[in-house]
């Protein structure tokens, strides 16, 4: 058995080394992609070194260490698979047409919002048509394949940029909110108990507070950062998400309250609050003229205690914190960006124009979008 385990380590080291060779022969003109590739080679080199250290340590020849040697092997294999899945695959699939395009888009966004950060690595290997994701650990953002041919969903890019900011400035974005949240939950539980609403209350309060702290705070923050940066376009993108979730009775997360994202309706209220904070009250009225009838007609159900779990006070609390944090980071609001560009084009303006264009004349939107995409990175 010990020789078998040693064989597994040797095989893994060989795989790592072959991956290093494959990466070394992959050329790119992109500075961002080249840096990402070089860091990947470094990580693989460190893993290879770690394997050699275990082989040389002598623990593989004793049955006393077998369990631990297997765990170490699994650990390094997972690290290898993580690099393969998130970094290697992204590098080998990198094209100038897709990733190169988005790299230019994000670089332009960073200049427009005045983000003092280096451009993240972009990949288009996410295989769902609506699924954007960020991986802060590797400072990377993924978009669906073919997304370079569409504008409307690009508001989500700002949400993913939000994840990268959030991971750098976590406490900054939730400055007073965490204490407020805790206090609000404690007081609300007492109030509900006094008013006689106690069925399963304690457990529900504990589970939803945990969800706020583990994922909802971050997701709300990223929505709010996106709204701060891209303005009303983000509200329309969320309205699209709500349209999709309404068909499964999930606008208020009735089907699955404790999912990773907070309910789409609560997210919408956060977006409205941020639009008000950046001075776009008029835009709120326009989106609400579509949102209010939508809410009424889709008639989705609300989970018990919904008004408490997602009270407006909680939404306001997190929105105020994110607004202050964005200001302190000197990020430009969407209206500030508009003033600076004057008559010129910006990525955020193109996305907002796209939402105006499709609502004004849906049938001619395709040709409008095609022309706009040619200009968006100029």
């Amino acid at each position: 058995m010990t020789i078998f385990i040693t064989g597994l380590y040797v095989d893994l080291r060989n795989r790592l080394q072959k991956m290093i060779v494959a990466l070394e022969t992959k050329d790119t003109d992109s500075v961002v992609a080249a840096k990402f590739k070089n860091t990947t080679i470094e990580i693989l080199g460190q893993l290879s070194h770690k394997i050699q250290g275990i082989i040389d340590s002598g623990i593989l020849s004793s049955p006393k260490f077998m369990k631990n040697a297997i765990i170490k092997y699994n650990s390094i294999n997972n690290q290898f698979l993580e690099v393969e899945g998130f970094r290697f695959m992204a590098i080998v699939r990198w094209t100038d047409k897709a990733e190169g395009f988005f790299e230019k888009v994000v670089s332009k966004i960073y200049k427009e919002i005045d983000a003092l950060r280096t451009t993240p690595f972009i990949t288009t290997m996410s295989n769902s048509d609506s699924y954007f994701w960020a991986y802060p650990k590797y400072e990377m953002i993924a978009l669906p394949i073919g997304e370079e041919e569409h504008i409307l969903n690009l508001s989500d890019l700002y949400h993913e940029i939000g994840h990268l900011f959030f991971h750098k400035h976590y406490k900054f974005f939730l400055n007073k909110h965490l204490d407020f949240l805790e206090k609000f939950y404690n007081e609300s539980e007492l109030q509900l108990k006094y008013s006689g609403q106690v069925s399963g209350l304690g457990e529900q309060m504990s589970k939803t507070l945990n969800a706020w702290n583990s994922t909802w705070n971050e997701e709300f923050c990223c929505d709010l950062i996106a709204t701060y940066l891209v303005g009303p376009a983000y509200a329309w993108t969320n309205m699209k998400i709500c349209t999709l979730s309404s068909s499964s009775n999930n606008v208020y997360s009735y089907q699955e309250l404790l999912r990773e994202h907070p309910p789409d309706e609560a997210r919408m209220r956060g977006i409205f609050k941020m639009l008000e904070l950046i001075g776009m009250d008029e835009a709120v009225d326009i989106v609400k003229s579509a949102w209010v009838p939508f809410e009424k007609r889709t008639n989705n159900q609300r989970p018990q205690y919904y008004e408490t779990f997602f009270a407006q006070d909680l939404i306001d609390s997190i929105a105020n914190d994110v607004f202050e944090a964005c200001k302190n980071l000197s990020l430009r609001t969407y209206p500030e960006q508009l003033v600076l560009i004057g008559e010129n084009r910006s990525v955020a303006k193109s996305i907002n124009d796209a939402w105006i264009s499709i609502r004004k004349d849906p049938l001619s939107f395709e040709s409008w979008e095609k022309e706009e995409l040619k200009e968006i990175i100029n």
Partner: protein
Amino acid sequence: MSELSQISSQYDVLATTTDSLNDAIVSVKKYNIIHFDKVDDFSKLKLQADEYTLAKETIINFLSQFIDEKNVSMQSKVVLPFELVKDFKREVINPIAFFDNKALDLIGKLQSDSQINDEQFDLLDQIVSALDIRRTLKFKNLRAKRG
């Protein structure tokens, strides 16, 4: 639209904890072989003094967070996030008969640099294996979410 960052953070906590506990167990096993087994078969084994000190501290901190407060006089350091501690205690620690006694005995031996017996190493391997399973499941979750 990405819960990947949260899953990644949870996975990183599990991976770091599993690796550090596993490394600590390996170091304590090395110490036992070098000091008590007195056999030459594993003459390649090397152990630095600070590596052993860190290993003892890691194991003691990890076990302490699961010992009932009434049974322990030491200040326990929380290693795993609160929610994970609760689940791990319910699913892994509680089914171990007389866990508190076994853990306290083990901690005592580590503190006095005494010989750890096979049964005690089996207990440590059982605990780190359970952590490894959770780490691997979270990793599968992470890869699936990548899309």
